[in-house]
Structure formats: structure tokens, C-alpha cells
């Protein structure tokens, strides 16, 4: 059990106090968020890849010691968190029930990073939340995966909005292969950045356990042949029985 002395892990969990103004961010996001992942900031993730963009955004912060609260997001699969290298023992899922305001303020007391769905970040509550996270130094990530244009809500959801576009899936064809990797362009727009910043990335990030070799074209052919052989022998048996 050799201890990997990766430089980011040397920043031990104990040194991550609320006095740091920003949280660690993975390299892929450095171009879209040049100022880093700031505390007290609201980041909204939108589009069909909103969930993955959000998880990639916070993964490094949780990996080095911050805690993550996921509010009313029980549909997120913990397996995906593992694929984004988020340690599960620092993740807590919370259902707010009837009293979201009270529950959320307790959440902001204890967690550095909070993810909530857009339906919980609306109207008067949103203003209270924004005030509260600034005071507490929490980073709030709002996930908005609805494709409908929000009626009469032209104001932006967060300080920064991240949108995924040009999504390209690798490994899947028309009836062949399987999903292997997703490449996409993430663009950031914000109140303070007049021009959107763009960056290409892969989500979930590539890692050592990728089983890419498992299904390259060659093995595909073998698989096809095998199924053909099985089908033929099956057919043969039927014919023999008929005879």
C-alpha cells in the first residue's frame, strides 16, 4: 500500500479551512474558471450534460477534504460520483421536505460545497440563499437540466453559468460498440466576463480503470462471428430435428 504523494493531497484536509478564498479545481476547468472555484459563489450548470459538468467542477475540492451536500438530488447515482473520483465518505444527500429554508441554512453551516436543483433555487428563497452562502463561504452549484426557456426569469441563475455543447460520444455507432467517453465544450458566461470562455474536456474524466481495450473493432468482429456461429449451429440442430 504505497502512499501516493500527489502534490494536491499534500494539502492535508486540516489545512483546508474556511479562510481560503477558493477551493481546489481540476485542471480541465482552469480555462473556463480562471479565478478558480470561489467560496460564496453560485455556479449554475445547464444543458443536457449539466450533472456531469457539476460533478467534474467539484470533484477535486471533495477529494482533498471538503464535504459535499446534495440537496433533493437523490436521482444522482453514487456510482457516477465514484467515476468522477469523488470520495463517497464525504458526501451526504439531504431531502429538505416542507421547510427548505431552515434545512438549507443548517446545510450551509456544515458543508463547503452544496449542489441543489434549479427548482429549489427560485424567487425569494434564491435571494436568501445567495446572501447566506456569501456569509458562510459556501460554494453553491445549481443544476438546471430543463431545456425549456425559463419564462419571465431573464436574470441569470448564478454568478457564473456553465453550459455544455458540441457533445460527442466516442465508441458508439449505429447498432455497434458502446458508450466509452464523452467529449464536450464547456462555456462559461458570467456577469463579470463579457465574452464566454470555452474549453474542451472529457466527462467523466479518463482514468486508469478505463476498459477501452475491451471492445475495439477487432474483438467486435470476433463477437459478431461468434454469434453467427451459434446461430448457425442452432439452426442446424432444428433442421436435423425436422429430418
Amino acid at each position, binding site marked *: *500500500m*504505497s*502512499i501516493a504523494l500527489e502534490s494536491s493531497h499534500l494539502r*492535508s*484536509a*486540516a489545512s*483546508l*479551512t474556511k479562510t481560503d478564498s477558493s477551493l481546489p479545481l481540476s485542471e480541465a476547468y482552469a480555462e473556463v474558471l480562471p479565478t478558480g472555484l470561489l467560496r460564496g459563489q453560485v455556479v449554475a450548470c445547464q444543458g*443536457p*450534460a449539466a*450533472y456531469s459538468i457539476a*460533478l467534474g467542477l467539484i470533484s477535486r475540492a471533495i477529494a482533498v*477534504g*471538503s*464535504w459535499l451536500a446534495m440537496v433533493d438530488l*437523490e*436521482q*444522482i*447515482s*453514487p*456510482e*457516477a*460520483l*465514484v*467515476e468522477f473520483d469523488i470520495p*463517497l*465518505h464525504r*458526501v*451526504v*444527500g*439531504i*431531502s*429538505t*421536505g416542507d*421547510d427548505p429554508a431552515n*434545512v438549507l441554512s*443548517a*446545510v450551509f*453551516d*456544515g*458543508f463547503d460545497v452544496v449542489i441543489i436543483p434549479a427548482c429549489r433555487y427560485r424567487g425569494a428563497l434564491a435571494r436568501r440563499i445567495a446572501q447566506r452562502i456569501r456569509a458562510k463561504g459556501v460554494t453553491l452549484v445549481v443544476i438546471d*437540466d430543463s431545456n425549456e426557456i425559463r419564462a419571465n426569469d431573464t436574470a441569470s441563475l448564478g454568478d457564473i453559468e456553465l453550459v455544455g455543447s*458540441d457533445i*460527442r*460520444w466516442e465508441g*458508439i*455507432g*449505429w*447498432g*455497434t460498440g*458502446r*458508450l*466509452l*467517453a*464523452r467529449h464536450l465544450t464547456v462555456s462559461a458566461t458570467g456577469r463579470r466576463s463579457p465574452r464566454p470562455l470555452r474549453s474542451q474536456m472529457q466527462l*467523466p474524466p479518463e482514468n486508469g*480503470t*478505463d*476498459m477501452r481495450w*475491451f471492445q475495439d473493432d477487432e474483438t467486435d468482429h470476433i463477437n459478431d462471428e461468434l454469434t453467427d456461429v451459434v446461430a448457425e449451429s442452432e439452426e442446424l440442430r432444428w433442421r436435423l430435428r425436422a429430418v
Partner: protein
Amino acid sequence: MAASSSVSSSVPRVLTLWCPEWPAHAVPSVEGPLIVLDQHRVVAACATAREAGVRTGDRRRVALRACPNATVVPRDYSAEVQAFERVVSSVAEIIPLVELLEPGSLCLDMRGPVRYFGGEDSVVDHVRSVVEGQLGEGSSIGIGVADGRAASAIAARRSGISLRPVIVEPGRTAAAFTTMNLRWLHAIGEMSIELVELLDRLGIRTVGDLAALSERDVLARFGLPGVRAYRVVTGADERPLSSVAPSQLPERERRFDEPILSVTPVVFSARELASELVQELATEGLVCTRMTVAAETEHSERTERHWYRSEGFTAAAIVDRVRWQLDAWINEPSAVSAGVIVLRVSITAARPDDGVQEGFWGGASEADGRANRAVARLVTLCGPEGVRVPLPIGGRLPEDRYGWVSTAVVDRDHHVDALAPWPGSVVRPAPVIVPMREVPIEVLNDRGESVGVSGRGEITSEPVSVVISGRSRRVVAWAGPWPLIDRWWDERRRRRLARLQVVLEDGSAHLLAVEHQRWHLMGTHG
């Protein structure tokens, strides 16, 4: 095996005494069955509860389901050491150098006693009779003799089950334990459960399997923990090159000007001693494995015990042992008649620290403390079901593999993130969104008819569009179908389905499943 026999000549013969279910012994007698819990897990139970099906490691609920009328008590180390003290002192009367491993277990070097009593059998008989004299005739005790501590600990566990002393001939460790499951090494603290599981998946299940490998290969593939386990099973666990001359090992003593009459202040100063000792060793990259704790009163009453721990003592572990020993000593009738004036902790064995210790990064951080307090408060606000933590469960379908479990029933110190391989599951990437309840969908071909999957796992026509919650989108790529028959042996929970991956025109990808000719959404790569 040639290598192991040449090494074993330098490994001392060790006798280990192990009293099964000691935590249950130490509890004052109660009516009916008894279960002892530590950190919400069963650590011991009485014979009646064992017969009812209570197993070590069970949670409280599981244990009580097996044996509902049992009395559940928390583990009390001090009481255990205190109860064990009479066993230790009776053994120490005939063999002075006794090392305590944990309450209920001790070991001793056989070299001297063998010469004195004439033969290992004779030593075993003597130990057995004095222990039976304390615990009563026919009580279950395990005595094992083998090369080195770890092997003798295994022998003692084995003997505790068979209730006959187990003596392993020199150099025959691997041969004697060849069919034993490697989980035993985890039970005696010589191997992490992760390594046991890894070896298990590679088909190395028994001591014999591991001993049949070469040490070099084990080091190359499994690193230091693997070599450690290898040395244990081949009877060469004493790290021949790593010992440090005892004269260089630190010792700390504290003299009290005022005799101290209660345990707490002595333990408090032990805390200081312990952290000094551990730090001094750490600067040289060492960790203490054996130490002697001694205390003396004004009237020169003494207690002196040797403690051993193969994982190494942390400062907290040293303090614990000082407390246990003093508690046992003070509560012993007529042992102490005055206040304590001297406390001495001396390190008698150390080895290079190979990072097995936990808390290397300083244990719990400020963020951990803050989050745990918030979780406690949130449980009162939203109820135990409102605060959940993710947990690996295992299965082939996305909804089975991991679950969200109420934080009230989870042991938060126990981290397992990775899942064992499950052949037949869809491999990485996993869908990010897994619907909480079934979402019916439609998968249509170019004529607008529903696509089906035949009994032989073949798709009837190509999918062209998918309708999810009333919204139809064009398919740009698809793969599959992958049929799956899960739990075919279970009439009620069996599932027979086929899975399909699709990429839709907006770039979103989904995992779909057809079951009983009806399609539903299994997950979305959101």
C-alpha cells in the same frame, strides 16, 4: 519451502493464549443470552446467542433479529483487562515474561520455559492448568505454539475452536495452515480486508495458495503489506533486518511529587509521555510494537506489564493500555494501598514504519468535524430518512449497484467506495441520473412501431426515435441490446431484461431497458 525453513531457525517459538469471546466473559453475569457490541458491531456473544446465529461483525439489528431476547452491552475494555488480570498474573507466576496482546489474549517466548519445564507439551500443559485454575475446569481456551507471533496467534484461534492445544512444528507453518482461509490473517490483524478481498478475487484463498508464491513476486505485485502476509504464512514474520537494538529505544518516566490516588491524572500524564515517545520514534521513521508499562506506589507496590501490537502503537493506543492496566491494578483487591508516585513507559521493540498506521494525515480535519455536527443537526430537522449517505451495495443494474442509506444506520468510519467486479453489468461510464421510480418510455422504429427484443436477444428493428415524458427525440447512435437474466434462482426477485444505449439528437445519452415488452428509462448520462 526451503527458504522458509532456513529463516524459521532464527524465528523464536511463541506460545499464544487466546480466550474466545473474552469481551462476553468480562461482563458480570446476566440472565439469558448476551451480546457485546463495539462501534455498533458484534464483537462477542455467549454460546446461546452464537447457537441462535449471532455472528461477529453483525450490526445490532441483525444480531437482535437472530436472538431477540439477548441483553446487549457495549464493550468495556477496562473491565476486560481487569477480568483478564488474574489470568495474566497466574501465568506470570510460572513464566515471568508475559506479553499482553489485547484483553483476552497474551503471548510468551518459549525459549526459557521450554528448558525449564522440559518440552513444549509440558509448557502448554502448565499454562493450561493455571488458566483453567482461574477460569474453571473445561472453560474454552485456545493455546497455540508456532514460529513467531502471528503464526502462533493463528494456532491459538484454531485451538480456541477445537479446544485442543495446537502445536505447529518448527518450519511447518505453511504446511499446518495450508487449507485455512486467508480471512484469518485479517482476524488477527496481520492483513487488511482489502488485501484479503483482492487475493480472493485472484483465486488466492488459502494460506497454502499464498505460501506457494515466491516472496519476490508477492513484493512486486502486492507491496509491503503482501510481503508481511507472506512472511506470516511462511512462519518468518519477525522482520529479521528491521529490529533496533533495545538500548537505543526511548524510555520515559514521570515522577509525581504528590502521590496520586486516582487513575485519571496518571492517564493524563501518560498522554504526554505517549506523544513524546511516538514523536521521538517517528523522527527516526520507527513505530513501537512492544512496550513495558510500569507504575509504582509510595509503598513500593508495583505493576509491570508488557504489551505487544503488530500494527504498532499510536499515542492513543499507548494511553489506552496505560489506562487499562492501571484500572485493573487499582481495582484488584489489596493490591494498592497508597498513591502512585512513578509511571514509566519503555519501548522494547520498534520497527520501521511502513505506513500501516491510520491517521497518517492527522486524522479528522476541521471540515470533518463541522460536517458531522451539521449532519447531527440535519437529522433532527429532516428526520433520519431525510439525511442519507451513498453506499456501495453491488449488482448488475445501475439502480442496484449503489444506494442511498439513512445516516442513522451507517457506520461512518468504515469507508468502502469501490465495488467488486460484477460480470454482466454495463461498464464505465455509469449513468449519472438513475430515476427513483420507473419512467415508462417509447422506443420507435422508422414506421412508428415499438421496437422489440426477441427471446434470443436480437433487436427486431432499428430504433429511430425515443419518447421520454412526452417529448420525442431522434436517435443518432445506439448500441446493444445486452440481455440479462438476474437472480434466476429467486422466483419473486428474478428479472429478465435487455438493455440498450442510445444517443439522442441533443447529445444526451441514455440507458434503456425492455422488460415484459415494455420499455423504461434505466439511466441518463446527464
